């Protein structure tokens, strides 16, 4: 609220001599940004509340699941319950949870007995590495193939590319991962199929190479399933642009075909694709759950999946907030970046 009120307040204070056009141009932009920020904040709040109550209804008693197979007295169970704060009434637990969130304190993981924030900090790197590499590679492949397919619409290359992309898009990612493991683990043994590092490797460069080596199969799996979307959007938005008058003008000026494509058509056609990349970026964090599970990649996805089975309430609800928060953040960024990229939607 304060953010959207601020420009109005300064607006009243402008000296009579200042050009009015500047004020008019600034205020809507700030109001737009303020509105977006407010929406994002409300969404995030709703997600936090959902996260708490959604996982409270999970079946199974975490205390019993953790002590399974061990001889524990009722008193010990009670002590454990008190330690986790599970003996308090639900409203009290909710208040504690909200107060903790304000201090970025997500509580203590039931299974690992360390603060969830530390756990997330430790696991977020591998997830970002995997999701980031995958997205960059998929976007590059998708954009270039989509451009080629649209520019030579109806050609053999266009048909083959579209067909392959649609087929790979229909393949479940975990199955593709399993097949790659079968081929490379029991077959050739060219790439590691498990985890992120070989234990015992030291030194900056060897570790980097080792991680890159481990990254090959998970990234391949992710790219194969994801790039089709970028390709299809790039193809259709370039097709939309191709009938435009300014391309005829560019050709009439005598520009070569490749220049018309590169300088005129592609930059305009990129806009929808960039929006899609932003929107997808928020989703990849949760989208790699499957790939992380299949390849035993030590990221947030596998943490979420293993936490769900206990149920490790603090971990699972914090991760839910993180996953949904990533989507909210990226939506916000897309809203903010889009007017910067496309002058036509600037007001």
């Amino acid at each position: 609220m304060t953010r959207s009120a601020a420009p109005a307040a300064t607006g009243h204070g402008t000296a009579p001599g200042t050009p009015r056009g500047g004020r008019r141009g600034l205020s809507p932009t700030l109001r737009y940004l303020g509105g977006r920020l407010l929406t994002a904040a409300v969404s995030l709040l709703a997600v936090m509340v959902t996260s708490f109550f959604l996982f409270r209804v999970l079946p199974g008693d975490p205390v019993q699941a953790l002590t399974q197979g061990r001889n524990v007295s009722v008193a010990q169970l009670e002590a454990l319950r008190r330690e986790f704060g599970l003996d308090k009434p639900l409203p009290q637990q909710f208040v504690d949870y909200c107060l903790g969130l304000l201090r970025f304190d997500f509580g203590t993981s039931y299974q690992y007995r360390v603060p969830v924030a530390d756990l997330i900090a430790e696991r977020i790197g591998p997830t970002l590495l995997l999701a980031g590499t995958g997205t960059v590679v998929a976007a590059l492949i998708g954009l270039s193939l989509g451009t080629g397919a649209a520019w030579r619409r109806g050609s053999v290359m266009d048909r083959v590319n579209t067909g392959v992309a649609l087929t790979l898009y229909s393949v479940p990612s975990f199955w593709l991962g399993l097949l790659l493991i079968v081929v490379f683990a029991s077959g050739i043994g060219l790439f590691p199929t498990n985890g992120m590092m070989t234990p015992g490797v030291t030194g900056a460069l060897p570790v980097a190479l080792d991680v890159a080596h481990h990254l090959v199969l998970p990234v391949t799996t992710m790219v194969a399933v994801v790039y089709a979307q970028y390709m299809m959007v790039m193809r259709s938005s370039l097709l939309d642009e191709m009938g435009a008058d300014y391309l005829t003008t560019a050709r009439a000026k005598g520009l070569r075909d490749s220049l018309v494509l590169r300088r005129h058509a592609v930059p305009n056609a990129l806009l929808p694709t960039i929006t899609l990349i932003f929107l997808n970026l928020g989703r990849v964090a949760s989208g790699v759950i499957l790939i992380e599970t299949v390849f035993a990649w030590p990221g947030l996805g596998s943490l979420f999946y293993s936490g769900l089975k206990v149920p490790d309430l603090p971990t699972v609800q914090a991760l839910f907030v993180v996953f949904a928060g990533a989507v909210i953040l990226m939506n916000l960024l897309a809203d903010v970046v889009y007017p910067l990229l496309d002058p036509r939607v600037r007001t």
Partner: protein
Amino acid sequence: MSGQAAAPRRSLVWERRRRAFAEFCREYARNRAGLAGLAGLVVLAAIALSAPLFIDPAGLTVTGGSGGRFESPSARYPLGTDAFGRSVLAMVVWGARISLTVGFLATFVSVALGTLIGITAGHFGGWSANVLMRVTDWFAVLPALVMAVALAAVMSRSTVTIIIAIGVTAWPATARIVRAQTLAVEARPFIERARALGGGHGHIMLRHVLPNVMPVVLAQTTLLVAESIIMESTLAFLGLGDPATISWGAILQEARTAGAVSSGIWWYLIPPGLAIAFVALAFTVCGRAVEAVFNPRLRERR
């Protein structure tokens, strides 16, 4: 008087619908990929429906397997056997029944929900529409897979749970598309005419808006079935499905826990995945063909 007028009017309406349908079929038939996808789906549906005629469900229980563990493909078991000595071919054919059922029902749930909310928000406008669209936005923000996994874990492990988990997470896209289309339809003069003639909200939404929104919904439905089937296999693969039912994802999950991946039992792993990919591709291709019929801008310009 009015009774006499009603009969020819009704036949007129039917005549118009028949012609529109014929036109739709003609346009659809021009899309070769769409035809191939449709043919594939018809064959698959026929196999799934007639499966009980040549497969005995008793042989598909964990204890009912007649072969040995991990037998490689032979004349008796064309796709070999699984960890419990069951025929993989029979399992995959039987799995089509569950996967298709869940795919259709989950899509139906989400499309019905999305259409209802979309039309309501588009028709009424004002603060109620605002609230509905805020709820939609908020659901769209929740990552679908995480939400479905959480819902499937929260409720009891059954096929109905999976259907609800997919249906509840997939509707926001439909709601947005339907709302946009509703707004476009309601801006046209025949809605004003209907209102002037005394048509109520229900009448306008059901008789005028819904038929005009249906084409978009149909295309969206076809594309959603593909997504639902992949989502179902994902949830089953993560071990969140009903352990007693045989779906393609469940077969893959069993294969993984039985160690088929590390020992390279390809005949156990490849068929269910291929089946998922085949069905998802067929629905995607059909959905694109339907979209192209209703949206001429998407049609290949020759």
